[in-house]
């Protein structure tokens, strides 16, 4: 009898799990994410260009308040978008790519800091820019897949 009850419970649990999974909507295309990614690309690109131009001058050093604030602001923007996407049940893959982008904004900050008085030289700034732009292109590609309904998760 006990075994019979257990069997029913397992079966009911299976049905309930199937209903819950079937009710989970597929990841949604989020036009705001595309706008955000375009803004990040513009802002990061402009910052790298500007900072490379100031390399070797006091304004180009990481230690200035303006430069430090840029990295803080970018991390806040990306972190905010990650939280928004998660809360809205958006694409887990979009979240993963934004987390990689966040890591690389931190890496850019480290490169800038490691440059000391030289700041962010073109030798480090350009490959860093290429990596970040690749991530944003990956995000755009994913958004285009989501828009056409081809995303797998």
């Amino acid at each position, binding site marked *: 009898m006990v075994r019979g009850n257990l069997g029913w419970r397992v079966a009911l649990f299976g049905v309930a799990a199937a209903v819950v999974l079937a009710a989970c909507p597929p990841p949604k295309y989020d036009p705001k994410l595309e706008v955000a990614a375009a803004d990040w690309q513009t802002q990061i690109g402009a910052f790298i260009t500007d900072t490379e131009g100031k390399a070797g001058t006091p304004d180009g050093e990481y230690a200035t308040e303006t430069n430090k604030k840029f990295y803080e602001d970018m991390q806040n923007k990306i972190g905010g978008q990650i939280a928004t996407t998660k809360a809205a049940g958006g694409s887990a*893959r979009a979240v*993963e*790519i934004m*987390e*990689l*982008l966040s*890591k*690389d904004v931190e*890496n*850019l900050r*480290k*490169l800038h800091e*490691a*440059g000391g008085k030289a700041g962010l*030289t073109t*030798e*480090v700034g350009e*490959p*860093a820019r*290429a*990596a*970040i732009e*690749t*991530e944003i*292109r*990956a*995000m755009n*590609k*994913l958004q285009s*897949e989501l828009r056409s309904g081809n*995303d*797998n*998760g």
Partner: protein
Amino acid sequence: MALDVQKLADDLAGKMKPILGQRWDEVQQYAKEEAAKLAAVLAKIELEKVRGLITEQQANILFDMQKNASTAVIAAVHGIGDMAAAQAFNVALAELKDPINKALGFELL
């Protein structure tokens, strides 16, 4: 000792193939492209390090950035998770660690 970019790209892609398993057919185009980019970045790092334009710390960060970028591309374009893509790169690089570090003249990996 200069890195052979083409050979390194082929070796990296070859090491990734068994890790990606059944997904290889659908991701191979991107895996090969990203392996080629990683190899090119390694060669550029080698050159700039030799010229004294970047430090070992900067070389490590730049390489990490390229790995992240390649992971994002493979994760985005063909429906494999970030972790699987990252694992494929990390295992392939770990297996080629010794020849890469030897060619660079410092421990990048």
